């Protein structure tokens, strides 16, 4: 099979330039998703490129120079985005900075050069522009789609090299056929080269997907950093500004940033203050209650050290707060948020855990601190620490998930970790006694009041699909009895609700989910909804009367109901990293102080805490989907999108089909229209334009005139001359006059010549130029 080398090189150039255009379009949007204007403008540019590739002149010989007017057209393409910017600003009230306008001009220029890629110089220039745009896209954008776009771009570049080289080889010598005969070389379609290219790409892809993970991971982290982050390769050297720059200290409390973070007690707002801002101040207990508080001292951890201020103040969580004074918006001082999360969300990061509910004071009391050694260093000598309080291993988990949590302005000594964390690390903080569990599953820095800003906590946690939990996955009542305690005053009501909501539902996750679902669907989360002053039970008010309330009432209700069903449950106060807070620029999820949240957790037999989310608008972290699942989900999403846009898609598909089916007729009519609008001033230009149009029809009909064929030879190969083709020989004769004897007096009057040309064009179509059965052609 032998395709026209120049034509295939032109299409390869268009493909290359289009992909560079797309990559830049992705990079110029923060979320990587082009807006409507961008898509529309891009489609318009692409359409013009395709049309231009048909209409723009092609060189007859390799040495022929492109016409000067084509240069002006390309310059105009370069200037187009700059020229229309004022108009766009007027219409849309948005604008682009000058450098982006220049880049956009370059993108349009690249497409224009691709349209003129029949000319070698423009073909090469287009490739150069495409390469530059690829560099720009990779430097400017770090959207997740960029690597994929650049991968496709690289493939297009490889194809361009194959076809451009083929075109250049064909044009080096005019005696292509002689070369073929002499050297037994056939310049056919580079099938073998393309197969080899495809194999190399497939091998690369296979290595990426299924190769040794250490190699892939190390390679992957080498690219964005200047020397590796050490995530995969512990011996990788960190580059400048890569990763944290902690130094190991001699004591547990000497850890901090190189930038000399302050290690003094801070007088800044504590966690207590933040809770008060968001939920409202706690109500003042009656004097008689203070004895209960004192009694609660027994559960306070014996600690000779002074407990952090905020920790002591959060021993109790009041469920009868008066609500926030204004909208739930904390004051943001200094850094953007409390910490930044890199990794999948949503994420529940507990700060304080509560187990006993004092119905009279309407307080949750904090859970006791753990005694014993619960953190250990990983044996491989790395920086990882293990949370070792696990009694048995559950086999209901999916693949572990990893996160990085960078502290910004945390008003606590909390080491934020997601639920079900199995291992964590802070670089260079490799001593187990630098950490302690304030509560089960909630880490803190030992002996500190505040976790320093800039610390990055690496975590690895379990994930699971709760539907896979067997009934026996939950802890038994004999283990931590506080987790099953329901105040007597509330027990009957809670049990009634629980029984009603879980009637005929099997034990285990179905029951848990039933309670959570009822709360999510039938109750409204309203931070300002507070029980009337003096109401005996906020939770009953919430369940029976208001059916709306803040998240801690959802958590309280769910916890008490689950306890009546013998599920070991506690309430946690912490931070909720919401997917909606994801920042595509930094690729992190910001967690602010306003993201404080309350939720229940159930203890599993192996010691992990399962997050339950009964509050509407909040979700739990699902297990990472397998590739097959994601593919299926993507297919389902695509199917739903297709159904939603069925009419538009059908209309578009029909239009495309019609255009494709009738493309030759449409092109023929377009060319003919151009000929009619500009037939030519002199008789020779009329004849030559007519000849070109007839040749175009031959190309459309698949009967292109070969380079070594004369017009007369080619004309003999066209379809059987019907009545309307009688003008063809005359046009050929006139074309010879115009081409070889233009200085002589024409053989016929000019009017007659124009009439002959009009007849030849008007009475034929591209279909008439298919190759006939008549043998014709070269000598």
């Amino acid at each position, binding site marked *: 099979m032998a395709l026209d080398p120049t034509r295939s090189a032109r299409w390869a150039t268009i493909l290359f330039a289009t992909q560079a255009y797309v990559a830049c379009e992705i990079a110029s949007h923060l979320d990587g998703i082009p807006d409507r204007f961008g898509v529309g403008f891009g489609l318009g540019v692409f359409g013009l490129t395709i049309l231009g590739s048909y209409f723009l002149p092609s060189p*007859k*010989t390799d040495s022929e120079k492109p016409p000067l007017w084509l240069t002006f057209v390309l310059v105009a393409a370069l200037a187009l985005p700059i020229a229309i910017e004022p108009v766009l600003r007027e219409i849309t009230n948005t604008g682009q900075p000058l450098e982006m306008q220049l880049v956009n001009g370059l993108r349009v220029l690249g497409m224009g050069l691709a349209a003129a890629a029949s000319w070698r110089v423009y073909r090469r220039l287009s490739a150069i522009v495409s390469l530059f745009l690829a560099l720009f896209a990779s430097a400017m954008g770090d959207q997740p789609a960029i690597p994929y776009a650049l991968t496709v771009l690289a493939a297009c570049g490889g194809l361009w090299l194959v076809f451009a080289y083929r075109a250049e080889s064909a044009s080096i010598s*005019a*005696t*292509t*056929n*002689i070369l073929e*005969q*002499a050297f037994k070389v056939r310049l056919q379609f580079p099938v073998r080269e393309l197969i080899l290219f495809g194999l190399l790409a497939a091998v690369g892809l296979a290595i990426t997907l299924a190769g040794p993970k250490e190699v892939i991971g190390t390679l992957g982290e080498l690219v964005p950093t200047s020397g590796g982050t050490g995530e995969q390769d512990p011996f990788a050297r960190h580059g400048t500004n890569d990763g944290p720059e902690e130094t190991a200290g001699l004591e547990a409390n000497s850890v901090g940033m190189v930038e000399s973070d302050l290690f003094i007690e801070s007088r800044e707002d504590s966690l207590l203050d933040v809770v008060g801002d968001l939920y409202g101040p706690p109500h003042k207990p009656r004097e008689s209650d203070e004895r209960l508080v004192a009694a609660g001292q027994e559960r306070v951890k014996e600690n000779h050290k002074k407990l952090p201020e905020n920790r002591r103040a959060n021993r109790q969580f009041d469920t009868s707060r008066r609500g926030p004074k204004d909208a739930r918006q904390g004051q943001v001082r200094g850094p953007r948020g409390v910490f930044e999360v890199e990794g999948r969300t949503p994420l529940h990061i507990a700060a304080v855990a509560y187990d006993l509910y004092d119905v009279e004071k309407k307080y949750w009391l904090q859970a006791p601190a753990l005694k014993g050694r619960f953190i250990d260093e990983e044996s491989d000598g790395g920086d990882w620490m293990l949370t070792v309080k696990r009694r048995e291993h559950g086999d209901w988990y999916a693949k572990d998930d990893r996160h990085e949590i960078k502290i910004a302005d945390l008003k606590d000594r909390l080491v934020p970790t997601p639920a079900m964390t199995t291992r964590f690390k802070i670089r260079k903080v490799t001593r187990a006694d630098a950490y302690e569990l304030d509560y089960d599953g909630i880490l803190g820095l030992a002996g500190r009041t505040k976790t320093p800003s800039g610390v990055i906590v690496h975590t690895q946690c379990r994930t699971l699909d709760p539907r896979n939990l067997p009934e026996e996955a939950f802890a038994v009542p004999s283990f931590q009895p506080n987790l099953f305690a329901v105040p007597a005053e509330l027990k009957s009501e809670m049990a009634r609700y629980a029984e009603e909501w879980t009637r005929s539902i099997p034990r285990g996750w179905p029951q848990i989910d039933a309670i959570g679902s009822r709360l999510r669907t039938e109750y409204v989360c309203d931070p300002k909804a507070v029980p009337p002053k003096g109401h005996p039970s906020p939770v009953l008010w919430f369940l029976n009367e208001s059916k709306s309330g803040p998240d801690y009432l959802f958590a309280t209700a769910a916890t008490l109901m689950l306890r009546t069903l013998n599920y070991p449950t506690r309430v946690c106060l912490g931070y909720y990293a919401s997917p909606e807070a994801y920042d595509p620029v930094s690729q992190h999820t910001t967690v602010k102080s306003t993201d404080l949240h309350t939720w229940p957790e159930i203890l599993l037999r192996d010691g992990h805490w399962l997050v339950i989310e009964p509050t509407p608008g909040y979700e739990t972290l699902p297990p990472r989907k397998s590739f097959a699942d994601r593919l299926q989900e993507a297919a389902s999403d695509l199917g739903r999108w297709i159904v939603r846009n069925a009419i538009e898609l059908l209309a578009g598909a029909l239009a495309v089909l019609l255009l494709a089916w009738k493309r030759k007729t449409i092109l023929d009519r377009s060319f003919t229209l151009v000929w009619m609008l500009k037939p030519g001033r002199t008789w*020779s230009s009329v004849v*030559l334009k007519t*000849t*070109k149009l007839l*040749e175009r029809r031959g190309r459309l009909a698949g009967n292109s*005139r070969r*380079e*070594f*064929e*004369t*017009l*007369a*030879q080619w004309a003999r190969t066209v379809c059987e001359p019907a009545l309307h083709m009688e003008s063809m020989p005359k046009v050929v004769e006139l*074309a*010879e*006059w*115009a*081409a*070889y*004897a*233009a*200085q*002589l007096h024409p*053989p016929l009057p000019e009017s007659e010549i124009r009439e002959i040309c009009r007849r030849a064009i008007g009475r034929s179509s591209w279909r008439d130029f298919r190759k006939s059965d008549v043998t014709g052609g*070269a*000598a």
Partner: protein
Amino acid sequence: MMNGAAIAPIDRLRRQLNTALLGKADVIERVIACLLAGGHLLLEDKPGLGKTTLAKALAQAIGGTFSRVQCTPDLLPGDITGFSVFNLKTREFEFQAGPVFADVLLTDEINRTTPRTQSALLEAMAERQATVDNIRHPLSTVFFVIATQNPIEHHGTYPLPEAQLDRFAMKLSIGYPDKSSQHSMLAAAVACEADAGNRAAPCFSTGELRAIQDRVAVQVVAANVQSYLIDLGEAIRNHPRVTLGLSPRGLLIWQRAGQAWSFLQGRPFVTPDDLRTVAGPVLNVRLGVQGESEAVIRDVLNSVTVPIYPN
């Protein structure tokens, strides 16, 4: 369009030659082109195909004097060019013109005479003059040589070297006539008397052929056509199977032959088609090729881009 005055004699010539050689209109057309181009013709074909008949008919049609030389190994150069004879009466040497001083010279089996004699003829063909005893004698202004040779017999022959073959404008083969032409030929032979061909009248008046040749020489050859011709020449020289490429003289002859062909087609200008049509006869006589020259010529013509539009 062809000069109206030239149509009639050309048509007459065409008719006469087609009458003499039946069924070979295309060969006759090329012969006429060669004549109008002012070049010499080499007919190479098997015996009995009408080479001599064609040559005699052509000579008669042109008019003027006709000479015939049967080349043999003992033919001397003086037998071609002429020699000086001492006149006892006048006691002076008198030049006796040889056959080369005719308007049309038929040289049969040119490859049977010695290279020395061949050189004498070929020199006269090239320079259109004969030097005898240091005296230059100009030849006819329409001096036209038709040489024949047999491609089969090689014993006792002296093949013309390529450099000397370049003197000829074209090399043609007549080939066997088709059946209908053979029928016509046989029927005509029964009805006609011996030497009937000798009675054909000349087609050209005095000076008319020369005028037509001058007219052919000014046929328009556009720059793009000349570029095409040059490209063809380059392609021939670069062909791997060509041992002796096209010389500039050959290029000139090719262009002139193209002009003659375009003249015969009634056009005042040369087209690439004209050049392609005469390519075979023009190139066959002057290329040194390994193997078949037709294939090489076909390769070359199918490899060079034809100019369709003006520069």
